[in-house]
């Protein structure tokens, strides 16, 4: 079996699952079973792909971006340049795996909605869309998958969200559409410019466009247009204000997918379609993006500290974490870029863990409002312990996953843009500040009657959190298997920075 079929299978399995779910919606309980089975199958496929990739001799990579042995291209509509073109490399590999993991955990773990056929179908469709965007090797194809994520997310927020769901969904939709407009414009402009300069047919093919010669000023314009789209999705300060509302109002599974996966579409896009596709523009845009990233770290931390709701707190904490990802992504250093890719994965796992745990608190207390929670560690020690693990990973405790990636980002950025890294490094204090303070208010202290009465996690709930704890611990202690896959791709695309800027 040729390896690219595996990727196509990754896109088809959830889609079929969604169709089956809708076809059997009359049968009680079928939605959950089909959803769980498709998501498990998807994860198995993702693991096979990861394993195959790991053994496909990546070490021989050189020069351009290559999707080793996994690429496949078939042109669908030549006149529009529409093509089905998929592939994997060290940057997208683990984001695909992350998608499969998070979707499965969201479907199985976020229990309040998992029996509703429409909800499960939307989740599975979202899985196809997200993974499709990660494996696309064609800009138009990427755009279509990227846009396709919008529809399921919108309906999940609008249909199953909290009290302010209508407002949250609308804001999310408008923001994202606003960004997508820039993405579309930039893409068309890029494709036409490339055709104009190089002749030949109109093509959105990634490697064609990567080698197209376009003027520096055009590259900067396109970079900025793309960056706006990705900045909304990630989100990057100041285009983030949809996210606290959407994360807080979405149901648990929705918050998980929004923050763990859709946010990564933004940072992944920034790396793939801005930094690596338009390297000539990077130098010009770099200071601005680095500054926005650092502001995001500090601003997100400050807002997280004053958040009154746990889900909002995690949303603002994500803003800060995405700041670190962006910092590494645009740092122009190999170490920083590898760190950023690793952080995309780690942040996805950590934030999915946070929202799962908060969902478990919510299902017990009916609220995620910090003022109503107190002393939960005594009645629910296991919940508290698992929350602590995820929290410490987010704070960046060495030995857990968050640290390695954050350290690499800062180390790499320090080499190329010292002062941004110095300011960003203070973010590690603030992360401890807002998370430990929240932990103290929610889990420490003597619980009142309502809080004392809650039950600890059931076995099923614990099992859902096991993969997260394993990923957090294993990637903290032994990150090499993942880094060794990421590095060749990064090394092939990001020039080694020898000069030291003292800006």
């Amino acid at each position, binding site marked *: 079996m040729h390896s690219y079929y595996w990727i196509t299978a990754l896109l088809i399995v959830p889609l079929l699952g969604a169709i089956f779910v809708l076809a059997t919606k009359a049968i009680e309980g079928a939605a959950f079973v089909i959803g769980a089975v498709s998501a498990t199958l998807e994860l198995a496929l993702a693991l096979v792909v990861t394993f195959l990739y790991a053994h496909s001799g990546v070490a021989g990579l050189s020069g351009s971006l290559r999707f080793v042995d996994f690429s496949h291209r078939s042109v669908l509509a030549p006149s529009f340049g529409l093509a089905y073109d998929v592939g994997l490399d060290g940057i997208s590999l683990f984001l695909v795996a992350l998608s499969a993991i998070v979707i499965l955990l969201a479907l199985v773990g976020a229990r309040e909605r998992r029996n509703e056929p429409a909800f499960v179908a939307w989740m599975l469709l979202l899985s196809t869309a997200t993974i499709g965007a990660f494996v696309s090797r064609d800009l138009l194809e990427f755009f279509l998958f990227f846009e396709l994520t919008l529809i399921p997310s919108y309906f999940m927020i609008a249909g199953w969200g909290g009290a302010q769901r209508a407002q949250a969904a609308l804001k999310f939709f*408008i923001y994202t559409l606003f960004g997508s407009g820039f993405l579309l414009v930039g893409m068309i402009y890029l494709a036409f410019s490339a055709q104009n300069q190089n002749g030949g047919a109109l093509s959105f093919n990634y490697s064609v466009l990567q080698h197209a010669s376009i003027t520096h000023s055009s590259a900067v314009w396109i970079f900025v247009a793309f960056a706006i789209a990705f900045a909304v999705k990630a989100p990057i300060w100041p285009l983030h*204000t949809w996210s606290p509302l959407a994360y807080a109002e979405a149901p648990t599974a929705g918050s998980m997918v929004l923050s763990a996966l859709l946010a990564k579409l933004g940072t992944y896009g920034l790396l793939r379609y801005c930094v690596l596709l338009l390297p000539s523009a990077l130098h010009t845009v770099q200071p601005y993006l680095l500054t926005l990233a650092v502001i995001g770290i500090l601003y997100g931390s400050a*807002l997280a500290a*004053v958040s009154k709701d746990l889900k909002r707190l995690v949303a603002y904490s994500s803003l800060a974490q995405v700041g670190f990802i962006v910092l590494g992504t645009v740092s122009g250093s190999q170490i920083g870029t590898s760190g950023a890719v690793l952080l995309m994965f780690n942040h996805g796992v950590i934030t999915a863990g946070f929202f799962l745990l908060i969902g478990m608190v919510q299902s017990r207390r009916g609220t995620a409002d910090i003022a109503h929670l107190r002393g939960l560690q005594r009645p629910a020690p296991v919940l508290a312990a698992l929350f602590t693990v995820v929290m410490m990973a987010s704070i960046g405790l*060495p030995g857990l996953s968050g640290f390695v990636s954050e350290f690499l980002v800062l180390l790499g950025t320090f*080499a190329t843009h010292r002062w941004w890294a110095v300011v960003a490094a203070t973010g590690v204090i603030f992360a401890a500040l807002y998370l430990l303070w929240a932990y103290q208010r929610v*889990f420490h*202290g003597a619980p009142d009657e309502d809080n004392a009465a809650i039950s600890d996690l059931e076995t099923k709930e614990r099992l859902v959190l096991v993969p997260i704890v394993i990923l957090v611990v294993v990637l903290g202690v032994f990150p090499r298997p993942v880094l060794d896959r990421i590095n060749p791709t990064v090394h092939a695309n990001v020039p080694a920075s020898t000069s030291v800027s003292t800006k």
Partner: protein
Amino acid sequence: MAHSSLLIALLPLVGFVLMLILGRSIPERATGWLATGAVAASFVATVVTFFSLLSTSKREVTVNLFSWLSVGSLHVHAALLVDPLSITMCLFVTGISSLIHLYSIAYMHGERDFNKFFIYLNLFVFSMLILVLANNLLLTFVGWEGVGVCSYWLVSYYFEKDAAASAGKKAFIYNRIGDVGLLLAMFLIFQTVHSLDYRTIFSHAGAFSGTVATVTVLALLLAASGKSAQIPLFNWLPDAMEGPTPVSALIHAATMVTAGVYLLVRMSPILALTGSGRATIAIIGGLTAFVAATIATSQKDIKKVLAFSTVSQIGYMVLAVGSGAYAAAIFLMVSHAFFKALLFLGSGSVIHSLNGEQDLRLMGGLKKYLPLTFPTFLVGWLTISGVPPFAGFWSKGDVLTNVYEFSKPLWILGVLTAVLTAYYMSRLFVLTFRGNERFRELTKDHDPHESPWMMTVPLVLLAILSIAGGVLDLPWIHHDSIAGFLAGPASDLSSLTHAGTNAQWVLAGVDIVAALIGLLAAFSIWKSTTPWPKYESSFLERVWRWDDAYDAVIGRPSTELANFAGDVIEPKVIDGAVTGTAVLVRRSAEGVRKLQSGFLRHYALGIVAGMAALVIFLLMRSW
């Protein structure tokens, strides 16, 4: 030897994992003994490693475990560096940890979270050993943060008490501020020598320019002041006394808080490159020693006195490091570990006998009720006060002799601190064991009782070590034995003492006089406590108003800033701008044609129209 050194670190980890798995399925006693056994076995492994290290000619072995990280030019191994410095650290860390584990079995008996206590304690020992055994800065940082998080958990062990929860958080955050210093130091070092490996850093020390070396050392000093509770980050340590007393003894006196001093000593080849950096270290250490000693004179809680005393004693160590007397710093660190652990455990025994009371005003006359605690505490008191021939006299004398050579003003500060030390410790001693019995309210009809053997045996052993510890470095008999041992190839720590023998005698005499002044002052002032002598200033009791100042200068303004961001900037400015744009789009659309569609179509249309215009503009631009 590779095996035994691996076991040093591994055994406490095994204990931790076993306890985590077994949980509450085994009885309390079994957990306690399992944890104690793991650490005691680690001590045995350390002793074995120590002797095999002595028998090697190079006195330095690197044990490579696995490759941890490899990105670009960064290659970091999980590897252990066994050399005289790290093995000295391991010896006293595992030794004292074993005793404190044993003590804790009795002290923590009946606690609700007994298991959790020992789980954290073993994890702590593991982290501490990684900290000292790591062969590179990044792995040291793993241990560094590991001990920090264990400290957080153990300080907030009684998490239902708000004060304990806050103290744990404060300890962690103050440490984090210091951690940023260590991160920055690592960045600078990596950029200079492209490695975080100690051996490589030291062999390329020539690559550091003066400025980079100074900034690096100042960053390391920031790290050390967080972990080792020095100015300006010292005020988390007294709060950390909310933790159980064995934790105070182990983490907040004997081991973790000295990690900053260890880091500075480990990095001594870089310290050697910068005179101004070293001078800053010495000044910070000297000031901290003095300030903390003044505060200790006015504390009413027995553990707070000891906490500030620890801050002050570590100040001496930092002062020694700044003066270039690395061996003296380590000597004081080891002997301090003995006598401060002894004093804390002794105070724990006192607190235990008074059903948990820590207020000195409610003690007194305990001498006759605590037949083992009293004499061992007496040893601890005389040792820290600097009375010969106990270990403290030699180790503190060693530091002060070196400081005398380095800077006369700092030496004077050090001697004044010695007077204060003898004073506050004598005050503590008198108020606890002598005078009238002020505890009757607490114990009601029965007398205070001596602690069980598991608590008193560690006291006796630590007392013996406090008495005998001085022979480690009797300056005129075994000439600079610690310095000689520590002067391994990885760390040239040979003491800089040049004072002639006559000057040494004079300096030793000054030390003795300083101790006697403090002692006599305390005895004359505190011989009667009715009425309570007015020698406690509220300024000193409130820690020079340090917390209040931080709160006013940093705490409240930044809280207000964060609130302002949350209440005004986010909803009004940023979101306002976005909403404003949306409204603008809608109004202009309405101006064109009254649309009856819902919001969504409305906005979408506006955006698509705008985009179309942009596409046209951009396409026009390129052709």
